[in-house]
């Protein structure tokens, strides 16, 4: 498997697990994961992916660290306020685990650049903070046949699923065909969000990503996990591929990437992914 002695020690608690082993740890070191948004969800997800030794991590975020982010975006820190999030996250990861190669995309993903970015990775983890990006990431992951580990949150609640429409399970649009009308679903800035909730959902995204890399257990593909922190209630809803889905259905009408308008500018700078 070709590990250094340091790697054998660093990953010993993984390697000792029969479900991971040396072979699984090798898969992690060879894996390439793109994390969209180094914010509330991306922060804990990135830290656990890096700690696990995921060999190549892409970070796409065009925002800068803001003081109001630090209540939940634990990959950043007070001295980093004002610096680009992708670079701040990279610095933390490099201190955590020098095995990880970090590729930063210090820009917003767009219809023009996203497919090429995604093509360089095996799995996409969506921790973005707005609907236009969520739909763009879903559509691009579908076109590029990449599994999408999708997490989102609102106040004290989170949603999580894995979308693999190329393997017969639903895509994000099978659940939510179009972005909601402007103003219906408030952003984190407008509605607030419990900081530690981001940890719960972001870490679960890392768990699902690692399972996907190792091909162990039962992934959340075909199921939507709904978490209510106030009730400490985890529910799972069985979700299915919509044969009429405009993207992954039998007669798709979406054949190339579409751009949705930001419902309000406030939303963009809100939760800051």
């Amino acid at each position: 498997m070709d590990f250094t002695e340091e790697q054998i020690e660093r990953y010993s608690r993984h390697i000792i697990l029969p479900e991971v082993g040396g072979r699984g740890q090798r898969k992690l070191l060879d894996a390439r994961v793109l994390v969209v948004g180094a914010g509330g969800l991306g922060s804990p997800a990135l830290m656990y992916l890096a700690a696990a030794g995921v060999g190549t991590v892409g970070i796409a975020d065009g925002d800068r660290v803001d003081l109001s982010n630090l209540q939940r975006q634990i990959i950043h820190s007070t001295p980093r306020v004002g610096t680009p999030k992708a670079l701040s996250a990279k610095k933390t990861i490099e201190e955590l685990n020098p095995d990880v190669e970090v590729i930063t995309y210090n820009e917003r993903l767009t219809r023009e650049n996203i497919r090429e970015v995604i093509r360089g990775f095996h799995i996409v983890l969506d921790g973005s903070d707005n609907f236009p990006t969520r739909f763009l990431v879903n559509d691009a992951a579908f076109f590029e046949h990449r599994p999408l580990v999708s997490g989102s949150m609102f106040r004290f609640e989170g949603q999580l699923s894995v979308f693999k429409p190329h393997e017969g399970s639903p895509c994000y649009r099978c659940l939510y065909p179009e972005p909601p009308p402007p103003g219906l679903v408030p952003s984190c800035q407008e509605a607030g969000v419990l900081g530690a909730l981001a940890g719960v959902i972001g870490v679960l995204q890392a768990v699902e990503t690692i399972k996907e890399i190792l091909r162990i257990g039962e992934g959340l593909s075909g199921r939507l996990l709904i978490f209510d922190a106030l009730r400490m209630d985890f529910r799972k809803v069985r979700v299915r591929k919509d044969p009429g889905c405009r993207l992954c259905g039998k007669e798709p009408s979406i054949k190339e990437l579409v751009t949705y308008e930001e419902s309000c500018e406030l939303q963009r700078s809100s939760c800051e992914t």
Partner: protein
Amino acid sequence: MIRVLLFGVLATKTGTKEMSLEIETPVTIEGLIEELRKRLPSLPEGEFLFAINEEQASKESIVHDGDTVAVMPPFSGG
């Protein structure tokens, strides 16, 4: 009796996370939402994800007495 669960903005706008509906069954999800709106006039309009007994459902799906119906909006926060 049908148990209705509301999530996200649906719960915050109506002040209701959970309610029991005594309505005639069987009823479609669409019919159930209409009844729900009579009781909760502040229920937002829009396209939501529905589930009957933790299985994804459509607006045309049939709800029976004793079922639990969940109505879930998408979240954008990250």
